[in-house]
């Protein structure tokens, strides 16, 4: 598929991941990190508080988050810059007090204009959102 613009990977636990560069808008050099793709997370990014603090990504607001069990929690959030596939975008970063994982949410893909294809055989594949219909059309035309 010539439309593929990037690939992710699976971590040792089998999570689909992307490698991205996280920074606080030029305040620090930032850090390259692996982030787990979470399709149940609708915002941009979750970062553990300690990592955010070390990169000087400061909490700037509170916000309510709806959880899968129907409850709501109040979390701190700020803004960070993420560089991925040679593009840099600003996005909202949630910083739960006890979070251990870096999570990429669906807003991340929307912000970078990407669609995600995950399969065991093809791996973690990224295509431009605007070309997704072409990709499916081509796939449906291929013999099984």
């Amino acid at each position: 598929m010539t439309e593929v613009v990037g690939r992710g990977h699976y971590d040792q636990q089998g999570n689909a991941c992307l490698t991205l560069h996280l920074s606080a808008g030029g305040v620090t050099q930032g850090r390259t990190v692996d982030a787990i793709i979470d399709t149940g997370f609708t915002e941009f990014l979750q970062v553990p508080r300690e990592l955010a603090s070390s990169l000087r990504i400061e909490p700037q607001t509170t916000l309510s988050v709806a959880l899968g069990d129907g409850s709501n929690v109040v979390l701190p959030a700020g803004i960070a810059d993420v560089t991925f596939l040679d593009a840099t975008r600003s996005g909202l970063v949630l910083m739960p007090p006890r979070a251990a994982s870096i999570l990429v949410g669906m807003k991340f893909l929307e912000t970078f204009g990407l669609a995600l294809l995950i399969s065991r055989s093809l791996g973690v594949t990224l295509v431009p959102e605007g070309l997704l219909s072409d990709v499916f059309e081509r796939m449906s035309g291929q013999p099984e």
Partner: protein
Amino acid sequence: MTQAHSPSLHSAADLRFIADTAEAIYDDRYREEYERVYPAQFVVLDIRDGSTYVGPSSVDALQLAKDRAPEGVFHMIRIGFSSVCRMTHVD
């Protein structure tokens, strides 16, 4: 605001205080108008004086708030929704 100290975004108790204070102000002054005029947009409310900053995205609204009120104590609301976003769970 009844608290003598400035609420901290590093304290769990203060996070809830900021959110509850902002939601009360929003319900009282803004909800009816904003749900009619700015559906699905984002508003950041400064609980110090009740001022608001509306934007089409979460980043736009928060950046506007920080530019206009660098010392603000903010809570973000997605207009017409009970939460800004969804997560499966929090660690």
